[in-house]
């Protein structure tokens, strides 16, 4: 749990952070976002006292941070930054061991922890002996996160942790972060200027401008109900699309007509009396293709009429978002997209009309 109460920071004439209050519940990810110079990094750095606030109180795990020794406080807070800041003279293992070492953990315990963390961030154990200069940008960022998590701190502060990598790597790292966070349930404050990143990672987004908190809400709410013109402009004209990336397909799956690939033509015709398209499945339910009823003649067999597809190319899984479903539709030129489970068995479909209804909700506000 992190709580900021009326925190202010002044640099000479300028007020970097102005009467800022915020509470992040245990296990939640709060993303601080705003235009550059809005005070988001200053706010983050006041939490672990790399910067001292001019006034106001900051509580971490219910303790007033101003009463703690700064080093003591920081040892209990994970810290990951954009430049990563891996120490070039130390191996990956020694880098990860930094905080456990400062806390005087015993050697075998540190060794076990390094193995655990490398596995957690998806890097092979051999990486322990590598030096930072031998790592790619994405690998270095992952080691940076592993190092921040090393002593299992309940709280994590991250300053653009995925900023310095290419878009593809960034997306992979974000997906990994979401997975790790689901497992570890840390209380996280993450600073970014990338709205898509905020929407993808946040439980709640805090939008800052000129040192003040403008809106603090769940991403869905920020996108559907921006509190004022500033937030409205900040989230942009494509906020409807952004909002889709927060919504799981799960709530929108419709029953869809399907037939077994070994069924007779009469059964096919019976199954889709009113519809034009019908999905075709194997005996075990695996999606194998679709049939266009318009080109169906009574004498054709399913084997002749089927448009065979690989399920993973056209379908989405239940873990997907509406945005992914929409991009599949646009990519294939379909008005619906099949939803499959992890063994490619057909569950149902998502229709373009339902997605349009969701975006209309956003636009009307």
């Amino acid at each position: 749990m992190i709580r900021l109460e009326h925190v202010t920071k002044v640099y000479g004439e300028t007020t970097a952070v102005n009467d800022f209050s915020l509470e992040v519940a245990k296990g939640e990810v709060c993303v601080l976002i705003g235009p550059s110079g809005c005070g988001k990094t200053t706010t983050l750095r006041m939490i672990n006292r790399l910067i001292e606030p001019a006034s106001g109180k900051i509580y971490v795990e219910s303790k007033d941070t101003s009463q703690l020794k700064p080093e003591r406080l920081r040892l209990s807070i994970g810290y990951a930054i954009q430049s990563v800041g891996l120490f070039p003279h130390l191996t990956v293992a020694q880098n990860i061991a930094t905080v456990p070492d400062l806390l005087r953990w015993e050697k075998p315990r540190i060794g076990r922890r390094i193995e655990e963390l490398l596995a957690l961030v998806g890097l092979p154990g051999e990486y322990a002996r590598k030096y930072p200069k031998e790592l790619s940008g994405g690998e270095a960022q992952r080691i940076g996160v592993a190092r921040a998590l090393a002593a299992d701190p309940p709280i994590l502060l991250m300053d653009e942790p995925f900023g310095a990598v290419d878009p593809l790597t960034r997306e992979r790292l974000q997906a990994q972060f979401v997975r790790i966070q689901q497992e570890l349930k840390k209380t996280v404050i993450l600073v970014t200027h990338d709205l898509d990143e905020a929407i993808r990672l946040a439980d709640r987004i805090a939008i800052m401008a000129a040192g003040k908190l403008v809106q603090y809400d769940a991403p869905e709410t920020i996108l559907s109900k921006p509190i004022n013109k500033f937030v409205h402009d900040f989230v942009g004209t494509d906020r409807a699309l952004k909002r889709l990336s927060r919504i799981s397909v799960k709530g929108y799956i419709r029953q869809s007509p399907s037939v077994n690939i070994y069924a007779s033509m009469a059964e096919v015709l019976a199954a889709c009396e009113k519809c034009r398209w019908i999905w075709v499945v194997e005996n075990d339910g695996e999606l194998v293709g679709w049939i266009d009823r318009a080109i169906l003649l009574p004498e054709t067999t399913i084997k002749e009429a089927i448009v065979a597809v690989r399920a993973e190319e056209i379908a989405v899984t239940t873990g997907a978002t509406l945005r992914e479903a929409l991009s599949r539709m646009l990519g294939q030129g379909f008005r619906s997209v099949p939803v499959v489970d992890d063994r490619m068995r057909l569950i149902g479909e998502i229709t373009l009309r339902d997605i349009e209804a969701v975006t209309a909700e956003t636009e009307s506000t």
Partner: protein
Amino acid sequence: MGHHRTTNWVLLGILVVIFIALMASTELWAVTLRFLFPEETQVIHPRASPLALLLEHLALVAISSTITILVGVPLGIWVTRPSGRDFLPIVSDLTSFGQTFPPIAVLALAVPILGFGVVPTVFALFLYGLMPVVRNTIAGLNAVPHHLLDAAYGMGMSRFQALLRVELPLSMRVILAGIRISVIINIGTAMIGAAIGAGGLGSPIVAGLVLDNLAYVIEGALPAAILAVLVDRLLANVENSFAY
């Protein structure tokens, strides 16, 4: 890379052994110098054997360089800390001044106070060698990227822990380069110690110049030159083991 380094060390080791063996063989020196300078009545300086002179010389350099390092590195560290940053300009100026001041002048000024012999020589060498050490310590520490310190402090290191674990290891190569320059300067400058009776390889040179005996000059100058080259390579090797 590792293989290359090992080869370097082995090669240097062999050269050092050969050098010491040559220096230990007074007889060889006598025969060679006698051959080169048949007209001189004496070719080996009577003060001590070549090896003894070398060891005297090394002692002068070792003592003065040790003091230089013990004073220079902490001084450089101190003026890059918040507590000493105000003193950075004055320390820079003073150490530069120490090097612009000719060591022979330091000797002339030191003798009335400290007397003759080793002590004023070590004092002059210390002053003269201080600048490269202090300057490189400051430069090395200032070159540590700021984001690494941000990471170090952010993870909970105290200033002292960050200095030991991050700043010094990362600036070690630059600091060692300063020490190398300082030591090499000292090997050459230590020659003048002979003028006030500190001994070392300067003794035969001073005597040779006074007596117009070229054999004496060679006896001092040649080992000093080789010593400078060997020590330079040795310290360069140490330096390279801190390349990141």
